[in-house]
């Protein structure tokens, strides 16, 4: 479905995750972050978003543990930067699919 985000028509799924990454840009990220109650994105948030996008591009499945060991952020900080479900919020803001966490 389509949703108006940062003044653009963006393709998202029923949970609000972007389905076409080429539509993502920083203004989209900002608006989703606001919507998710994260507030202003700091440089540390951006470092994490970059990392997530990079991992996704390489088709590496994402998990909180992996992010905690990545050197980009530790688990405690990750929870404080993206409270209440850090991975699902951070991936939504990064414009990539919600991690299936492998089933």
């Amino acid at each position: 479905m389509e949703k108006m985000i940062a003044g653009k028509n963006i393709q998202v799924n029923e949970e609000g995750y972007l389905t076409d990454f080429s539509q993502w840009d920083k203004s989209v990220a900002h608006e989703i972050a606001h919507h998710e109650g994260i507030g202003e994105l700091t440089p540390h948030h951006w470092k994490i978003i970059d990392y997530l996008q990079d991992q996704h591009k390489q088709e590496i499945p994402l998990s909180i543990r992996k992010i905690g060991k990545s050197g980009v952020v530790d688990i405690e900080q990750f929870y404080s930067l993206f409270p209440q479900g850090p991975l699902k919020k951070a991936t939504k803001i990064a414009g990539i699919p919600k991690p299936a966490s492998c089933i």
Partner: protein
Amino acid sequence: MKKLVILGAGTAGTMMANHLSRELDLVLWEIDVIDHRQEHYYQPGYLFLPFDIYEPEDIVKPIKDFIPKGVNLINDKAEKIDAAEKKILMHNGDVIHYDVLIVATGCNIAPEEVSGMKGPEWHKSVFDFYTFEGALALRNKLREWEGGKLVVHITEMPIKCPVAPLEFAFLSDSYFKHKDMREKVEITYVTPLSGAFTKPKATEALSHLLTEKNITQVNDFGIKTVDNANKKIIDYEGREVPFDLLVTVPTNKGDALMERSGLGDDLNYIPTHKATLQSVKHPDIFVLGDATNIPASKAGSVTHFEAEILTENILRHIQGEPLKEEFDGHANCFVETGNGKALLIDFNYTHEPVEGTFPFPGVGPLRLLKETRMNHMGKLAFKWIYWNMLLKGTHIPFVSTAMQTEGKHF
């Protein structure tokens, strides 16, 4: 003579030994299977052991009974794989060379990954049921437990058989009902996921069942520690869930051999091509079952579909032909829901589990994503199928390797 080595004689390794002993020319090829254990464990049985539904004898049989003639079974632990030199260093000092290696070492629980999990309460009020010892200890505990707060918990994904903890919660509900003590037990299901399951339609059906059975759900719980003294689990945001009996599925990891060999990711899973099952780094190494990092369920049924495709790819590889990119992530899992019922889910990399009929479109007799008695019979029949057909690499009639879309309501 050339040598094909299969590392691990669990579900996957045993299937491959059976397939390849039929398909390879045993005049040209020697097949070795390595496992340090003497016994094969039917892991789906670990779900039933704690509730006195299965006995240990149902679950454990000698490995050698399932390894075909003409295949050498080597009973020792592999310590390291030297992929550059194509050899395996064994615990007893032997060195085994290979031309083609199939890794089927599975995965195991690693409770030491969470602080306090393997603490003083381990196997006293904190249990796993993902090992034979854990399931048996839990059976003994449940036999005499007088009730209180039962917490069923998943530490982190991925885990093998991701529906098993849910099934454990459902079966607990019916177990305590049968013992006439359900009102003395408060059941809570704690998961790092945002819902009962990872795929939306199945999550809806399963959440509904949790509610119906009066099981409280706690979602998005990223466990930080098990507090042994005060008997509670605490997450990274400071949320606490108290327990009298904690049944947890600890972090699952591949064998530590992968770390020593530089072959695994941070959970010791081997990066594997998801459609061909070839190692990403080493063309002479193939991986199947729980040891891979592919985004499919870690389940015996998945392994069965993988084995059919991998057998063909091994033959192609040996002949220098291009590999078939055919594995679609097909999984087919029965979910025990208690009171003699089960539901069935069938899905792959791209299609989530939905309602419908299986294996015959429009007919069944099994119903997808619906609780029925017939599905429960299917789950119980799985034990017989496992020992008598799956391990021997027999094709299951009517069940195709690639997932079917007919008969399903997408």
